[in-house]
């Protein structure tokens, strides 16, 4: 079974802090994704990575950056957290060989005070 893990289930940070969210997958998938989920807005793609050190912006990249130094790990970075980044963050991974079927991690509920 595909396993996608995220570093924290719940996180509370203060405005202006630098925040790192980590995601690890164990299925050698080449694709990894970061989404955020907000009430009324649904799930929206922040960033996508299709290979080590490769990334593409999604629908809402402003205020975020990403890092993919190893194939299994994809990090989301909030350079200076703001209250409007309070959200549920979901990481996913997939492979082109299985039709881009995406598998999600448990999510991180981030609160920025």
């Amino acid at each position: 079974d595909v396993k996608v893990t995220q570093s924290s289930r719940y996180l509370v940070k203060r405005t202006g802090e630098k925040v790192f969210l980590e995601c690890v997958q164990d299925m050698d998938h080449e694709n990894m994704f970061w989404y955020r989920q907000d009430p009324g807005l649904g799930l929206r793609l922040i960033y996508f990575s299709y290979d080590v050190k490769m990334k593409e912006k999604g629908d809402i990249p402003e205020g975020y950056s990403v890092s993919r130094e190893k194939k299994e790990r994809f990090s989301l970075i909030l350079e200076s957290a703001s209250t409007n980044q309070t959200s549920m963050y979901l990481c996913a991974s997939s492979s082109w060989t299985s039709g881009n079927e995406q598998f999600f991690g448990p999510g991180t509920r981030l609160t920025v005070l």
Partner: protein
Amino acid sequence: GIQVEQSPPDLILQEGANSTLRCNFSDSVNNLQWFHQNPWGQLINLFYIPSGTKQNGRLSATTVATERYSLLYISSSQTTDSGVYFCAVEPSQHSGGSNYKLTFGKGTLLTVNP
């Protein structure tokens, strides 16, 4: 971009009842997935079904790609089936969409009462 509409938005059932959830999409797709979001927020994969019919226990799904809709059937519902069900699609390249991002519907909130 591609539009994904799910119906009904809310559904309340008694345990043991059957239900059908619908997903309409506005353009051709490479990928269609059904998810169940559990109370802790995790998206659980139910089906990867860009076309055809699949069954897994009490759940089954059918996608008619030519008519741009998918159906999720839940039979003999249980209280543990409660939660939000999402349909998500990846547009086909020829339709002008990106070939990686999933576009999600707004979901169907299912409540199964004992």
